[in-house]
């Protein structure tokens, strides 16, 4: 095959895989009305959400602390160290909370989802579900999708809160910024709707994309050990790129133009 042919073939297979991903998501989403799936979704929220809590809390704490430290050294030159609160809060709520959570989530939970579904495919568990007249999209894919979609925004909120507390720890308790100005300036510059609300919208979008990629990569992988390892890598790479790219678009839409 000459290079142009292989380029075309690659493009065609990419478009086809996007198509398959869409069909899969469609099949999974229309599995909501089954009440039997609620306990399964809870079980998956435990795996996907609760088990990611530790890494989220620790990362949030450290990112908040680092930002307070960095911000303080810059702001103190202008005598504006009181603005540390808004700086930490706004960057966490608008950007770092949703984005870093999504990246960590892709690495922690997304890759695990891909590997799990890929292995279920390789060990014929998905096939055997199908032969038992149980739709694997409903039984396996849908609960994991909903669990990821619900858990990630929750994790992002926790991340931002812990980060703000971490900023308080370093800024106020250690570096001696006035606690009153840390909170009150934060309060006057953070708006519930446009800052916290937009942050939540962002993380909902990221949750959709990351969970979707993770599940589809597992569901669509070649059922061999090589195929699964490739799919897992692809999940992390594609999710990270998608999150960063979408973040720019969303930021431009939300905060770019007044």
């Amino acid at each position: 095959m000459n290079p142009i042919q292989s380029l075309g073939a690659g493009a065609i297979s990419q478009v086809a895989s996007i198509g398959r991903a869409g069909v899969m998501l469609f099949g999974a989403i229309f599995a909501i009305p089954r009440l039997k799936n609620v306990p399964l979704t809870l079980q998956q929220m435990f795996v996907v959400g609760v088990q990611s809590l530790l890494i989220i809390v620790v990362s949030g704490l450290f990112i908040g602390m680092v930002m307070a430290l960095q911000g303080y050294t810059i702001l103190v030159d202008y005598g504006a160290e009181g603005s540390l609160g808004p700086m930490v809060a706004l960057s966490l709520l608008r950007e770092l909370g949703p984005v870093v959570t999504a990246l960590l989530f892709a690495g922690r939970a997304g890759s695990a989802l891909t590997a799990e579904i890929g292995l279920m495919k390789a060990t014929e568990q998905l096939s055997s579900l199908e032969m038992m007249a149980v739709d694997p999209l409903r039984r396996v894919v849908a609960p994991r999708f909903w669990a990821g979609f619900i858990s990630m925004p929750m994790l992002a909120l926790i991340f931002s809160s812990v980060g703000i507390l971490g900023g308080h720890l370093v800024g106020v308790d250690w570096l001696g910024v006035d606690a009153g100005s840390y909170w009150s300036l934060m309060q006057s510059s953070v708006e519930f709707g446009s800052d916290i609300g937009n942050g939540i919208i962002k993380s909902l979008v990221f949750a959709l994309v990351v969970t979707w990629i993770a599940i589809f990569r597992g569901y669509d992988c070649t059922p061999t050990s090589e195929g699964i390892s490739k799919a897992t890598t692809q999940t992390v790479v594609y999710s990270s790129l998608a999150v960063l790219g979408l973040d720019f678009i969303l930021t431009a839409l939300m905060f770019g133009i007044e």
Partner: protein
Amino acid sequence: MDNIVDIDNMTFSRSGRVIYNDISLKVPKGKITAVMGPSGIGKTTLLRLIGGQLAPDAGDIRFAGESIVSMNRSTLYKTRRRMSMLFQSGALFTDMTVHQNVAFPLKEHTRLDSDIIDTIVALKLQAVGLRGAANLMPSELSGGMARRAALARAIALDPDLIMYDEPFAGQDPISMGVLVKLIRQLNDALGVTSIVVTHDVTEVLTIADYVYIMADKKIIGEGTAEQIRNSESPLVQQFLQGEADGPVPFHYPADKLENALFGEKT
């Protein structure tokens, strides 16, 4: 005699490669039908075609008189409840105990009380001799036990048809004997129809009522176990005797060795 599965002039190809070329096959009700053939000719594919997971390019597959090929999704799912498949690896759900695995199809498809389900599960496990292993995880089972547990799951809903995909592959002689006995017993006791896909000639010839031998995209021989043993076809005999060379060549098609080593490149 009624047939539970009829395959008529079916052709199937995957990614451009023809797997089956115009084959016809019948599975009579209540009997054990064996499908044999060398590895890598897509015997598993045949079972997936019967289960409706794959669609043939041409021809028809009927289950109990109804065409699987032209079924819509919900009818297909309804039909699948009447068949079950024992996968080569067992395909037990790794996050559930043996008990939960066997209970799974019952919980999905019936509205029975959990007491009744427990009783049914215990009976099914008793049938395969694993009642004592009910609370083990699949990872704690040996290969043969995993396959028996999967068999218990396969018969949980009392299907009309059980498809065995290489049930003897990689088993020690004892487990093999156990499985052979189980397949025969279940067939007679439950009155189900069995399709056994395998390349273990001796084992399957002892239990099969009717045998198909496939090679080279076609059915090359069929008949009762006795007829097959006495077949005059050199292909069938090569397969039965396990000769290294014969109509199925030892060498993968290639250039002549002399040409490849010493000849000039053409």
